[in-house]
Structure formats: structure tokens, C-alpha cells
């Protein structure tokens, strides 16, 4: 046991540097928040958090293409799969932080106009602790770390949703989130307990190997039980149908920056969990009769069913919504369905396809929520009619929103189109024509509700002589960056695809670690 007494300082803590920076920034923000007198402007804390995110992003970027490393007895591994996801989380959290600064800006009125968020310090550092949980999740190589990361993200999100505690829809949404999230964690954990029981280990790679033996030695049905519970638990997290019921209420009740954080970072974390857990644990399973891999031939059908249900339910129910944030919630349910398509078809390209769409989704969703936040605050309403005549009032804002909506709908020349096109090709390539057809048809349906917003902006007239919507610089930055990225990824996707194909070595995820 001489390894056990190895000096703690001898470990390669540098591998965890990005997480430690985020943890340090969040801790510092918490302490400063306690020291600052009540009623004092807490916005400088957000800049501290943003600085932490930038430093962490630089450190993550430095780890890209390095040899995969592991610390804490293989519980935590840094590979390009984790790095890619961490960059998405960091970008999403940075944008959410910028939106949050404007949300508590002059006047202190929170986005829906009901009640101000007085406890503004928490607003900023809970975004960082949520980010920390997501980053831990991406790097986890052990069931326990995976679970703890998931819960750090979830607990931060619950509190963020409930921040406006005088505002009934916020607390009601938050309570529904806690109950649904709690049930989802319990279901995921129940599945994990069988993974542990069958293999005797909590390390994901060891679980993968042990599961292969368990499957052929007569415990096949328990393997199925574990897979079923894990898929249900993950489907809750990514808000995929039929486990999406919490999403509309939570998205509507939460402050808009938090909604954007949930739609992007929390959802991306769910996909990191899905890939890390299901691929490493179940990839080795093979049908004992013909040796075909189980995940490719049998289990992926269930994931495909969840994807199809999400696309259909998300896109059709969105048609009936009049609240923009609620509509975006159903749109994000539909996007969870699109994002599950590469996992159902499971080609060797699954990482780059999913990652490209996640990046495109990050920018178009963040941009759309930024505009929604401004318009909702300007009009004091989240109703679709708040967008009436926006083109006349603020032409640039209306054009940016149109771009994001077209990208979300997947029209050509936008990032959303390229991403969706690759997902479509992956489904057709594996001859999953039903899934591909559902994807195309539901995308066409989605045009209806996205165009409803565009119609409001361009064809309806608002009240005469309205002043334009004031755009704070932080939100302006988010909109400009998102719009630029959406157009660039749509017109010139090749550099980004090259980056995903060559710079990030995703298959590192399965490499057993050298001592």
C-alpha cells in the first residue's frame, strides 16, 4: 500500500487546473459577496467570474492534444472528449454570466418584470459552481465522480431557478425542477448500482470490461435493466420526451440568463454524461450468437425512439405556445431529439457530429435568449406579441433574432443547417430512414412557430413613436458574437469540422491509461 501514502502534492494537479480555477473564482466570489455590505452593487463579482472562466478556457485549450492524463486513482481523466465539452460549457457559462450582468443592471428589474433579484451575489457564483459540476461530469472516469458532478450542476441550477423567490412562477418551476431532478437522479443511481453490482467496480473502463463478462455469463437481463434506468435518467437531464414535462415550467419561471444556461450548459452536460457513461460502459457488449455489438444493433433502437418522440412532441407542442420562453423550451426539447440522432445512428463520427451541432446550438440559443431577454424587459412581457414591430423599433435586433431563429429552424447558410445536415446524413448512412424522415418532417413543422416570431417582428406594427430597445453592451457582445459565429459556421463550416476531426482526438476516451 505504499502507493496509498504517496504524497498528495505529488499528484499531477495541473490536469485539474481549469476546475481549480473555477472553484477558486467561485469561492472568492462567495467570500466577497459576504464581505460586501448589503444593497451594494454585486456586478463586479461577475467580472471576476468572467476572468476565471477565461483563464480556465485558456488552461483547457492548453490541455488539448496532450496525452490523456488521470489523477486521483483513475477517478478523473483529462482527454480531448472532456476538453471539447469543457470548452462548450465555459463558452455557455461566460455568455450566461454576461446576460446576468445586464439582467440585474440599472433598475435591478429581473427579466419578466415582476420582482427584482435582490440576492444578486448568488446569481453570479452559482453559475460558476454549476459550470464546475458540468466540467467534473465531462472529466469523470468513475461513477461516483460522474454522480457528484451531476448533482453539483443540478443543485446549483435548482437554486438559480428559484432566485426570484417573490415571483410565484419561479418558485413553482424550481420546485417542479427539484422533484423531477430528484426522481431522475434516483433513477440514474439505481441504474448505476446495477453497473457496480455486476462488475464490482465504479471505474468506467473497468465497468465496461466487467459488463461484457456479466452479459455472457447469464446476467443479460440485469444489463438491460441498468441500460434502461440510465437512459431514462439521462433523458430527464437533457429534457428529452417523454421525460420533458419539467422543462417548459422551469424555462418559463427562471430568469432568462438562467434559462439560457439550462438550455445550453445543462443540456450539453447531459450529452457528455450520455456519451461518457453509455459508450464506455456498454460499447464492449456483443451478441453471443453472432458477435455483433449490442449498442449498435439493439440498444440504439431505444435511443432512436426517444429521439423521435422528442422531435415530434417538442415541435408540435411548441406550435400552441404564446409565451416565448415556453416556446423555446419546447424548441430545446426538439433539439435534444436532434442531438440524440447521432447517438442512435452511432457512426464513428458520432463525436464530431454531436459536437458541431452542440456548438451551433450554443450560439443560436444564446443569441435568441439574449434578444428575448432585452425585448421581454423592454415590454415587460414574455408574450409573443412583445415582438410586434420590433423591426421598426430596433432593426438590428430584429435582424439578429431572425438569423438565430432561421438557424434554429435549420435553414441553409446558417450553422443550424450544416449541423442538422450532418445529423441527417448520419441517420441515412446507417439506413435509419424513419428517423431521418421524422427529423426532416418535424423540422418543417418547426418553421411554423419560428416564423410566428419573425412575422410578429416584421409584419405587425407596434405602437407608433416607440423608442428603440436599449441594448446594454454586455448583451450586445453576446448577440454580436453569437450572430457572427452562426453565420461563419454556416458559410464556412470546414475549418470548424477540420478542428473537430483532427485537433480533438475523441477516441482517447476509450484508451486504457498507461501507468
Amino acid at each position, binding site marked *: 500500500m505504499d502507493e496509498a501514502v504517496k504524497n498528495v502534492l505529488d499528484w499531477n494537479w495541473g490536469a485539474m487546473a481549469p476546475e481549480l480555477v473555477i472553484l477558486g473564482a467561485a469561492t472568492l466570489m462567495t467570500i466577497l459577496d459576504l464581505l460586501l455590505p448589503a444593497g451594494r452593487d454585486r456586478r463586479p463579482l461577475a467580472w471576476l467570474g468572467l476572468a476565471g472562466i477565461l483563464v480556465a478556457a485558456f488552461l483547457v485549450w492548453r490541455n488539448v492534444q496532450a496525452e490523456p492524463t488521470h489523477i486521483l486513482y483513475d477517478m478523473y481523466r483529462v482527454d480531448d472528449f472532456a476538453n471539447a465539452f469543457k470548452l462548450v460549457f465555459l463558452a455557455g457559462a461566460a455568455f450566461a454570466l454576461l446576460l446576468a450582468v445586464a439582467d440585474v443592471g440599472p433598475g435591478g428589474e429581473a427579466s419578466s418584470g415582476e420582482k427584482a433579484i435582490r440576492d444578486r451575489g448568488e446569481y453570479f457564483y452559482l453559475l460558476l459552481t454549476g459550470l464546475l459540476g458540468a466540467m467534473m461530469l465531462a472529466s469523470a472516469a468513475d*461513477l*461516483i465522480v460522474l*454522480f*457528484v458532478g451531476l*448533482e453539483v450542476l*443540478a*443543485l446549483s441550477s*435548482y*437554486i438559480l431557478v*428559484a432566485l426570484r*423567490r*417573490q415571483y*410565484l*412562477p419561479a*418558485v*413553482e*418551476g*424550481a*420546485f*417542479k425542477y*427539484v*422533484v423531477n431532478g*430528484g*426522481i431522475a*437522479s*434516483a*433513477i440514474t*443511481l*439505481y441504474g*448505476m*448500482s*446495477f453497473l*457496480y*453490482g*455486476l*462488475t*464490482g*467496480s*465504479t471505474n468506467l473502463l473497468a465497468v465496461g470490461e*466487467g459488463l461484457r463478462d*456479466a452479459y455472457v455469463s447469464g446476467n443479460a437481463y440485469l444489463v438491460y435493466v441498468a441500460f434502461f434506468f440510465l437512459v431514462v435518467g439521462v433523458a430527464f437531464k437533457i429534457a428529452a420526451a417523454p421525460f420533458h414535462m419539467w422543462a*417548459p*415550467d422551469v424555462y*418559463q*419561471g427562471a430568469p432568462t440568463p438562467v434559462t439560457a444556461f439550462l438550455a445550453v450548459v445543462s443540456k450539453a452536460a447531459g450529452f457528455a454524461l450520455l456519451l461518457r457513461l453509455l459508450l464506455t460502459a456498454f460499447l464492449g457488449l456483443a451478441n453471443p450468437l453472432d458477435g455483433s455489438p449490442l449498442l449498435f444493433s439493439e440498444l440504439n433502437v431505444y435511443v432512436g425512439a426517444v429521439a423521435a418522440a422528442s422531435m415530434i412532441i417538442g415541435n408540435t407542442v411548441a406550435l400552441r405556445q*404564446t*409565451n416565448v420562453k*415556453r416556446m423555446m423550451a419546447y424548441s430545446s426539447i426538439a433539439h435534444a431529439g436532434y442531438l440524440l440522432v447521432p447517438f442512435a445512428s452511432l457512426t464513428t463520427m458520432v463525436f464530431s457530429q454531436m459536437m458541431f451541432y452542440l456548438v451551433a446550438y450554443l450560439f443560436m440559443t444564446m443569441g435568441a435568449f439574449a434578444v428575448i431577454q432585452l425585448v421581454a424587459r423592454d415590454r415587460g412581457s414574455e408574450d409573443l406579441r412583445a415582438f410586434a414591430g420590433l423591426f421598426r423599433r430596433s432593426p438590428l435586433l430584429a435582424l439578429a433574432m431572425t438569423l438565430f431563429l432561421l438557424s434554429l429552424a435549420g435553414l441553409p447558410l446558417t450553422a443550424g443547417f450544416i449541423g442538422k445536415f450532418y445529423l441527417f446524413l448520419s441517420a441515412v448512412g446507417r439506413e435509419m430512414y424513419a428517423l431521418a424522415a421524422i427529423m426532416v418532417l418535424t423540422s418543417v413543422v418547426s418553421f411554423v412557430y419560428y416564423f410566428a416570431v419573425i412575422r410578429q417582428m416584421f409584419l405587425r406594427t407596434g405602437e407608433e413613436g416607440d423608442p428603440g430597445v436599449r441594448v446594454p453592451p454586455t448583451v450586445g457582445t453576446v448577440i454580436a458574437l453569437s450572430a457572427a459565429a452562426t453565420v461563419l459556421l454556416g458559410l464556412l463550416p470546414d475549418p470548424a469540422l477540420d478542428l473537430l476531426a483532427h485537433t480533438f482526438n475523441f477516441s482517447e476516451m476509450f484508451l486504457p491509461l498507461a501507468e
Partner: protein
Amino acid sequence: MTVTLASYLLVAAFLFCIGLYGALTKRNAVVVLLCIELMLNAVNLNLVAFSKYGPQPGIAGQVFSLFNITVAAAEAAVGVAILIALYRRRSTVNVDEMDTLKR
């Protein structure tokens, strides 16, 4: 008399089902939170049983269950705090009345 692994798993499965049923059907929000705890404790029972009588016994399952207990406590604290905030607004803990967001 020896108690086999299967009986532990069966008890855990019962607990889990009771918890899930309660969480989905009970009208009192406090009972809903309690039922979620029941589900999490079913998981702990599973983990500890596997770590003692499983095909590959080991300490990891017990460590996992300790983490579960800690996180479950944090989750319960957040859940109850949000429930109190909700109670202050609505003066009710009845889940059926939490319907202001439906349309």
C-alpha cells in the same frame, strides 16, 4: 439461516417502487420529497448489498453509498428551502395547486 443477495435486491426494488409511486401520485409536497429519499435509500441498500454479497464484493459500493447520503441531504435541504419559499407565496403544500404555469 443465510440471507441471500436476491432478498436484499428485492427489498430495495420494493422500496424503489414505493418511492417512485409515491413521488408521482402523492399530493403533499413534503411526502413527495420523502418519497424521493426512499428511492435514494433503495439505491444505497442495493450498493451495500452488492458490496458485501455481490459477485465481486468490494468497498467501493459502500463509499458510493456514503456519497449518496451526503448528496441526498444537500438535495433535501434545497428542496425544502424552495418548498418554504413556495409555501410563503401560496400558503399550500398541495402539489395539485401548483398549476399557475399550466396553460
